């Protein structure tokens, strides 16, 4: 027994090292499964406020450009309002009839701003300034007016962590805008604004420059959110599906104001899908 203790004592640094590395490895592995909550996240108030401090300084630099983008978006939204009246036969019908029983709200939008962005690693994460206090939940989608940012992974009191689209663990349902063919969009890890859309059947007809949007087949993102344009495409030999290179509309190095999307029907949808799978 004493020999054993002596042996351990002599090599105490090695055992300390081993013990610590096992903890570190466990934290790493635990972090990879993005469906579970993570221990190591940047949603704590201390870290959030360090990032907020730094981003306050940074945001001054981009104010003019941001202003311009917001003005353009306002203009787009105004024009949609004007076209909310359309003619059916001889009568006018108004969509903005909020007392109508025909429309219930499915998607709720919350605005947020980015306090920390990363785009250089293989797996990137973003921290935003909304949390439990603002009604944000894990697995809510995060978008801008012209692109997908990612999915919320952990939620703190005031801040949330988003798994970025620039992350090798994220796959998003996407489709060609001008048809209903859909596939999976992922990030291959090279250029930060280039993505790969796979599983589009070879019968699909499209051209370079066509728009890719979200497909709407996930409970997280509604259909029709712009993602990017077709940059190039190929069919790997022996395969029946296209692999399309998509260039995003937005620059992922330059995001500040985002929208968080909550699908109020997500629980009902996933219950139905789960019961379908277990049948």
């Amino acid at each position, binding site marked *: 027994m004493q020999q054993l203790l002596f042996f351990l004592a002599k090599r105490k640094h090695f055992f300390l090292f081993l013990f610590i590395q096992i*903890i570190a490895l466990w934290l*790493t592995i635990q972090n990879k499964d993005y469906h579970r909550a993570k221990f190591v996240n940047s949603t704590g108030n201390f870290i959030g406020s360090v990032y907020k401090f730094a981003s306050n300084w940074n945001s001054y630099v981009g104010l003019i450009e941001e202003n311009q983008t917001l003005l353009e978006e306002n203009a787009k939204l105004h024009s949609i309002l004007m076209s909310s009246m359309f003619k059916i036969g001889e009568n006018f019908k108004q969509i903005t009839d909020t007392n109508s029983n025909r429309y219930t709200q499915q998607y709720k939008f919350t605005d947020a701003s980015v306090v920390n962005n990363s785009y250089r690693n293989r797996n990137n994460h973003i921290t935003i300034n909304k949390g439990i206090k603002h009604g944000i939940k894990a697995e809510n989608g995060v978008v801008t007016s012209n692109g997908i940012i990612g999915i919320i992974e952990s939620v703190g009191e005031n801040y949330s962590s988003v798994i970025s689209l620039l992350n090798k663990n994220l796959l998003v349902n996407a489709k060609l805008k001008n048809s209903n063919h859909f596939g999976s969009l992922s990030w291959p890890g090279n250029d930060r604004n280039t993505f790969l859309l796979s599983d589009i059947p070879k019968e699909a007809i499209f051209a370079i420059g066509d728009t890719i949007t979200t497909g709407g087949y996930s409970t997280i993102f509604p259909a029709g959110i712009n993602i990017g344009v077709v940059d190039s495409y190929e069919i790997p030999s022996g395969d029946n599906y296209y692999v399309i290179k998509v260039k995003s509309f937005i620059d992922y190095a330059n995001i500040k104001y985002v929208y968080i999307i909550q699908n109020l029907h997500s629980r009902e949808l996933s219950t139905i899908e789960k019961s379908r799978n277990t049948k």
Partner: protein
Amino acid sequence: MRNSIANILRFALLLFLQVVIMNNINFGGYINPQIYILYVFLFPYYNKHRSFFILSSFFLGLSIDFFMNSGGINAFSLTLIAYLRPSIFNIIMGNQAVNDKLSLRELPFSKSITYVLLLTFFHHTALFWLENFSFDELGIMFFRILLSTLYSTVFILISLSLFFRKKQ
């Protein structure tokens, strides 16, 4: 006593620098210098507090991980080179340095470069491999490791020479 305060200051300063400034610098689009590993090089070598050194390196790495949402990869890599430092130092600098208790500034410059390069390389290899956690992108990953090692080593060597100049 003065030493421990200096250590704590280094810890906090390097954490802050890395997270707020260095993580936003990028060369070639995707490499950022990891200067928090300076902690391992600046920690006094010839004292008896190796356990404290290993533990504090782990916590520095873990703090960086918290900021970057990256699990335990920085913690693992930093602890790894903290553990390996005495062995690598002995191998490169030879027995004379250890016997005479020479400090880093008194040692030949070429050996210092090798020492910094080697430890940085181990750190970056562990870091990038853990981030990827597979063997499928080996070529690109290796290229990133090499390039990041070079950049980080340059930063570290500059910082080290800045630290030590005034003493002479």
